[in-house]
């Protein structure tokens, strides 16, 4: 009996080792979380350009966008990690550096002249503890207004004339009177949190924003008149939403604007992809503006990271990948397919659309941009902000005091 069992176990182990193949030496595993047609088209641009340098893209996709990237860490633990991965969480890069697996890019980007052409917010996003650790792929603005031009015409509203949020709210009565939803908003926690970020940045400016969302937040900012005003604005927006808002996904929300049920949505500029997928024309059917009177926009950067494999061929492949990724031409083509904005201010803009140009124009002013905490801040801290923003939004009985108190308590626990 013992013999049989031992034999069985040996056979199982043997089969395991024989079948256990890994990617062949010339293929480099590229791990990302994208699968949608626009995203695939963008990745295709990069893959083809990289292929010309003689590198083979071995694709690995896991749609699983959690703050702490569990899958990546699992693969490192299992001894089968990807050489190139898409991730923006600074915590991941700190972990990798600690394990001696990080690949700094500062020298490379300096030598090819990329660093000086990154807008400040991008540079901040990709820098971890003083070193550039990520190769930026796209720029997204978290709080842009996309509106339906037909609804605007029907209600006699001109969003481009708005100078402040007050103008916007003043026009909402006209919109409501004609039976349209003035502002489409969804129910996910991240949608509300992104909106609060956008409101704080656009209304109160970079200083307040950075003190609240920064890498090392400032406790005293939580209880300031500015924060309270921003919260009141946030509440004001909430009061203009429709009853269907809770539990609605961001793309269903965008759909309300596409189908002409709602005038506008304040959300990340990736909603443009939904408009384009529905065959809507920028400039005819829909248009985009910054939040009226914006003092700063929140910048999100999708970025690539590299894992040190101690293999010269892989290192060369990684270096070529990083170079192509920030190449002015390739990057412009990449973001055009993706529906985002380029990571450099010196790219060729001839093929970009009006919304891209608006973003690039805004990013030319170094004092008008801040970073998405998702790319820079402590995960516990911004998760708490998300949670509290959601609670405050969802329950009209909650006051600014409740929010302030909760954030102060959280601060003491986290830092």
């Amino acid at each position, binding site marked *: *009996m013992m013999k*049989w069992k031992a034999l*069985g176990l040996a056979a*199982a*182990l043997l*089969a*395991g*080792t024989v*079948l*256990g*193949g*890994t*990617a062949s030496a010339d293929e480099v*595993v590229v791990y*990302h*979380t*994208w*699968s*949608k*047609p*626009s*995203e*695939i088209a963008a*990745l*295709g641009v990069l*893959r083809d350009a990289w292929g010309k340098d003689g590198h083979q*893209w*071995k*694709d*690995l*996709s*896991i*749609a*699983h*966008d959690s703050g702490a990237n569990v*899958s990546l860490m*699992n*693969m490192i*633990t*299992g*001894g*089968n990690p990807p050489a190139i991965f898409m991730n923006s969480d600074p915590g991941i890069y700190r972990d990798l550096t600690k394990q001696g697996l990080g690949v700094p890019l500062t020298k490379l980007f300096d030598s090819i002249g990329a660093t000086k052409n990154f807008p400040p917010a991008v540079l901040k996003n990709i820098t971890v503890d003083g070193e550039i650790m990520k190769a930026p792929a796209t720029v*997204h603005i978290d709080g842009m207004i996309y509106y339906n031009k037909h609804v605007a015409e029907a209600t006699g509203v001109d969003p481009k004339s708005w100078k402040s949020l007050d103008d916007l709210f003043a026009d909402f009565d006209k919109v409501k009177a004609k039976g349209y939803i003035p502002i489409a908003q969804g129910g996910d926690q991240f949608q509300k949190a992104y909106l609060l970020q956008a409101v704080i940045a656009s209304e109160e400016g970079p200083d307040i924003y950075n003190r609240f969302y920064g890498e090392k937040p400032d406790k005293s900012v939580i209880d300031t008149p500015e924060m309270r005003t921003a919260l009141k604005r946030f509440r004001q927006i909430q009061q203009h939403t429709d009853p269907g808002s809770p539990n609605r*996904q961001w*793309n269903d929300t965008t*759909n309300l604007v*596409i*189908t002409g049920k709602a005038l506008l949505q304040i959300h*990340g500029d*990736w909603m443009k*992809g*939904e408009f*384009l*997928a*529905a065959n809507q024309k920028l400039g005819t059917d829909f248009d985009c503006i910054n939040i009226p009177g914006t003092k700063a926009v929140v910048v999100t950067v999708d970025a690539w990271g590299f894992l040190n494999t101690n293999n010269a061929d892989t290192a060369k492949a990684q270096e070529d990948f990083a170079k192509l990724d920030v190449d002015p031409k390739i990057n412009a083509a990449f973001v055009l397919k993706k529906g*985002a904005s380029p990571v450099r201010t010196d790219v060729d803009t001839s093929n970009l659309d009006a919304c891209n140009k608006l973003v690039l124009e805004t990013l030319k002013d170094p004092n008008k941009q801040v970073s998405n905490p998702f790319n820079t801040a402590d995960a516990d801290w911004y998760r708490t902000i998300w949670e509290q923003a959601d609670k405050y939004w969802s329950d009209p009985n909650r006051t600014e005091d409740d929010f302030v108190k909760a954030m102060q308590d959280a601060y003491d626990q986290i830092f």
Partner: protein
Amino acid sequence: MTAISSNAGTSAPSAVKARRRPLIRPSRVVIFVFLLMAAAFFAVPLYVVIVTSFKTMDQIRLGQIFSLPSPWTTEAWSYAWTQACSGMNCNGVRVGFVNSLYILAPSLVLTISLSIVTGYGLALWNVKWANGFLFVLFICAFVPFQIIMYPLIKIAGGLHIYGTTFGIAVIHSVLSLPFLTLIFRNYFRGLPPQIIAAAMIDSGSFWRIFFEIVLPMSGNIMVVVLILMITGIWNDFLVGLTFGAQDTQPMTVVLNNITVTTTGAKNYAVDMASALLTALPPLVIYFVLGKFFVQGITAGAIKG
């Protein structure tokens, strides 16, 4: 599950009829209303999923989720099966289907062949420390996968099976071994002891008794275990996600890649069709083996 509940549902009213009570009674109405509600609870979302999968995106954008498709189109289905993208591999959910089969087959063979022998040994032979061993198995059956995930990844990495379909199969087998051993052990305990005693007197060896007496008597429990394992492994996401790699992701992970979007546009028809395609195989197994499943369970119940 469905087989059991529908059985219970039909047998209750017929028992009432046999006693010749009036047809419409308040308690009956209540039961019917409850059953209808329960059925609707599962059927309405399913209806929406099916109907949506046959619509075009333009229709879906109208937001009338209960309306019938006009025109009906199977585009989303063929797209989901052959063209939907999981990462840059735009070959549809069929890639995952094949991977899931490659995971399913070895893990079924491994798990069942190992656990049926351990169950048999523990139930019918005098094994030293058998009770202690059973207790440990019992505890193991309740350990959630998540808390032993890290060491398992380490072990799989050390054995060089991390990131392979075979590796996923082995992990599935290891994880379900305690539970299945308990099931088999309890089933074999219920076999008439006289038969085994007689076989031992006839100087049958461990393996002869197993192959010639015990195995032919375990058809019922085999069906139960098969259904449990097939649904469990097919529907698993976490093990496949954790131990899978580039070409070895099971169908559920591929489905997740297709449906979950962070900043990309969404096509609900394709999402629904992919989800239905992924859910189909275990459903088919239920329909084919469902009858035996109930038999197997009741056989065990009466004997135990």
